[in-house]
């Protein structure tokens, strides 16, 4: 385990993240142009979706696809309840703030997911190709739970725009691209992959390195800007909640009888916190909550934790518990 953690920590992927983090903390002006960062994230989404689809075309869909989707949705909708309760106990956040944060932890971080698949590939652990579809399905439900939590309390959300908001969330670019590429990969199958694999397979890890360099810069800036925004309880939550989410993901993955890699990815999805779709939705629905609260927790606390220590931990546990399956 320690050895695996060290191997993970010393991979180019994690070291690139650390480089970005260090540069930002040292107030270097190193930065990736916004357009390049967005282009890399589109590339990663397209590639991961496409490869997932091809893998489904290749191995067929066994019966668990529908169950896995339902399991993911329940996980996403349920985790905010736990997160909310925890936050109300350990932190000084207001109910509305706690609900906004909770939505992030029910939803998922696709970059953490991508990094997780890279770790699995590196160790040769097989996983279900359709897990990218599960990831996409888990983006939105947490938002509904959070809005319900707020409405139940003070009722101060403005529900008139709810439909529009859900349209935006469900059709946000990341989800559409991920699902779209998944479907394209499924339709075209291995033949389609062979046409474009030197674009989406070979350079994948390298692009991921540069993208994580950028994420490191963003996380480092978040740490500097977010100092003082969070109390100790909230910070502790940012390190503890991923473990809770991973445990819940483990339970779902084992209950569904997934492959070891699939279980690990369920843990990763449970553990990770959104930093794209949910923050945008929260700015629209709960503008009174300072975005620094949730962005700092998600990007500057939980993401680094998952990337460095979480991933090897989840993969090791999943291999151990699901390995004999």
């Amino acid at each position, binding site marked *: 385990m320690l050895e695996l953690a060290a191997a993970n920590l010393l991979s180019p992927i994690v070291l690139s993240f650390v480089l970005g983090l260090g540069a930002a903390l040292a107030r270097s002006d190193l*930065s*990736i*142009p*916004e357009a390049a*960062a967005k282009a890399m*994230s589109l590339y990663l989404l397209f590639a991961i979706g496409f490869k997932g689809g091809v893998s489904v075309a290749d191995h067929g869909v066994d019966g668990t696809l529908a169950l896995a989707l339902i399991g993911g949705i329940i996980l996403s909708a349920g985790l905010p309840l736990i997160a909310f309760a925890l936050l109300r106990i350990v932190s000084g956040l207001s109910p509305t703030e706690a609900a906004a944060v909770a939505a992030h932890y029910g939803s998922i971080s696709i970059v953490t997911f991508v990094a997780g698949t890279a770790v699995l590939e590196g160790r040769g652990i097989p996983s279900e190709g359709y897990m990218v579809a599960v990831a996409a399905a888990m983006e939105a439900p947490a938002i509904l739970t959070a809005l319900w939590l707020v409405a139940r309390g003070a009722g101060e959300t403005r529900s008139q725009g709810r439909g529009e908001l859900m349209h935006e969330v469900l059709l*946000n670019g990341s989800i559409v691209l991920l699902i779209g590429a998944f479907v394209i990969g499924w339709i075209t199958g291995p033949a389609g992959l062979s046409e474009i694999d030197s674009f989406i397979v070979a350079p994948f890890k390298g692009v991921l390195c540069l993208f994580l360099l*950028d*994420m490191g*810069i*963003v996380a480092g*800036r978040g740490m500097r*800007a977010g100092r003082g925004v969070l109390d100790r309880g909230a910070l502790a939550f940012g390190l503890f909640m991923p473990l809770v989410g991973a445990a819940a993901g483990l339970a779902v993955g084992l209950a569904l009888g997934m492959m070891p890699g699939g279980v690990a990815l369920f843990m990763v999805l449970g553990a990770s916190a959104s*930093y*794209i*779709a949910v*923050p*945008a939705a*929260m*700015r*629209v629905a709960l*503008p*009174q909550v*300072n*975005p*620094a609260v949730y*962005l700092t927790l998600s*990007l500057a606390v939980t993401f680094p934790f998952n990337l460095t220590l979480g991933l090897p931990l989840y993969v090791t546990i999943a291999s151990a518990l699901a390995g004999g399956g």
Partner: protein
Amino acid sequence: MQTHAAKRVEITIELIMQSRLTRALESAGVTGYTILPVLGGSGRSGAWSRSGQVTRASGMVQVICIIRPEKLDPLLDAAFAVVEPHIGVVTVTDTQVLRAERF
């Protein structure tokens, strides 16, 4: 050259609210606006900068409307309804336009 009095309304607002704002403006009868990108800024809710934004949640834009003076009040009402719960700034400046028939 002949110029005509007009009002220049500049609304700095979160990117995520842009389409809601322009729809509100259109339903208030505003027939034209121009949107400028914003690189960064600082206010009561802290400083932010576009570089390294990985999320759609931050980022702002500046919406500029040139209007006839008599259309100012409906515009401000419409804009205020959208801007009010959000961070952002609204300014109104006296100006002169060419080709007043366009406004």
